């Protein structure tokens, strides 16, 4: 197969970073911050971890462009799903009176 050979050390370094980020997620979750900041911090670290797994462990970095299309499209679809739903949920109560109600 033509997959590029990644050195074992890279994998081990990635694992150490992933473990450190897990500890960081837990540590940050105990810091007294506004609830929204906690969600933002948790999701940012999780996204960072997921990116590392996809790029290095799943070899997306050395994958053909077609694979990249699938990855990017699935992220785009997820963003559409989330952004359209939360434009509703996050703005409820933002207006004193909804027009037409």
């Amino acid at each position: 197969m033509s997959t590029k050979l990644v050195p074992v050390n890279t994998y081990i370094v990635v694992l150490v970073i992933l473990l450190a980020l897990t500890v960081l997620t837990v540590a940050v979750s105990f810091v007294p911050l506004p609830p929204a900041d906690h969600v933002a911090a948790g999701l940012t670290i999780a996204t960072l971890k997921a990116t590392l797994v996809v790029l290095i462990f799943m070899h997306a970095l050395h994958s053909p462009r077609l694979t990249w299309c699938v990855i990017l499209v699935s992220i785009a679809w997820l963003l559409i799903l989330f952004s359209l739903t939360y434009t509703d949920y996050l703005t409820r109560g933002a207006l004193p009176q909804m027009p037409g109600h």
Partner: protein
Amino acid sequence: MSLKDTLFTEAEQKALFDHTFLARERLEEQYASLPHQSETAAFGMWVFLATEVMFFGTLFLSVGAYWCLAPEVIERASLELNWIIGGINTLVLLVSSLMMVLAIHSAQINRQSDVYRYLLLTAGLGVCFLCFKALEYYIDYRENLIPGFKFDEAEWVSRGVDASQIGYVKIFLFLYWTMTGFHALHVTIGIVAVLVMAVLTRRGHFSAEYYSPLDVTGLYWHFVDVVWIFLFPALYLLGTHRL
């Protein structure tokens, strides 16, 4: 000395034999070459994973939606979940992902006995994950955290949740059971797939030129890990800042 021996060196003859064997035994007729076949298989798995993203995505969406509606109640409910076991399981899955990637690495450099060993370690860590999960579910059962089956509204009122908002607690716990349950199902399927790969490795099915099923199983296993990476903060760590 035969004509074949004068035309090709011994190494070339072996390479030719291996190639012919692989092409005959592993190459499906609709593909031009083994790399073509392997890339198609990996692409198929990526497309399947894209559908999985949508499946788990909607569940995460629901947690977020209810958090928007009643953040304090969701945080209070999340506080009752066992973040320590959840955290240990995160570490277990991350290490299992390394084992999986090392199995594929060993296949790339044709060390079949290492492939076998790493696959068994991957499956073993998967079983370890499920054992912790079972322990956690048992604790949840003991603590009345199963809405509709073993749930005590009075307990939640005594924890400071308004009686009119207990519905949010139930929905959050329902999502917790659904998401972790489906994730555990994925882990179980992954363990079976990894064990099948271990058996195939033992039977000499793979080589440095052909390890496509191993690669595809790896993609699935890592995806299950990615789902947990998001599950952990989204379910377990929402309320820990209140401790």
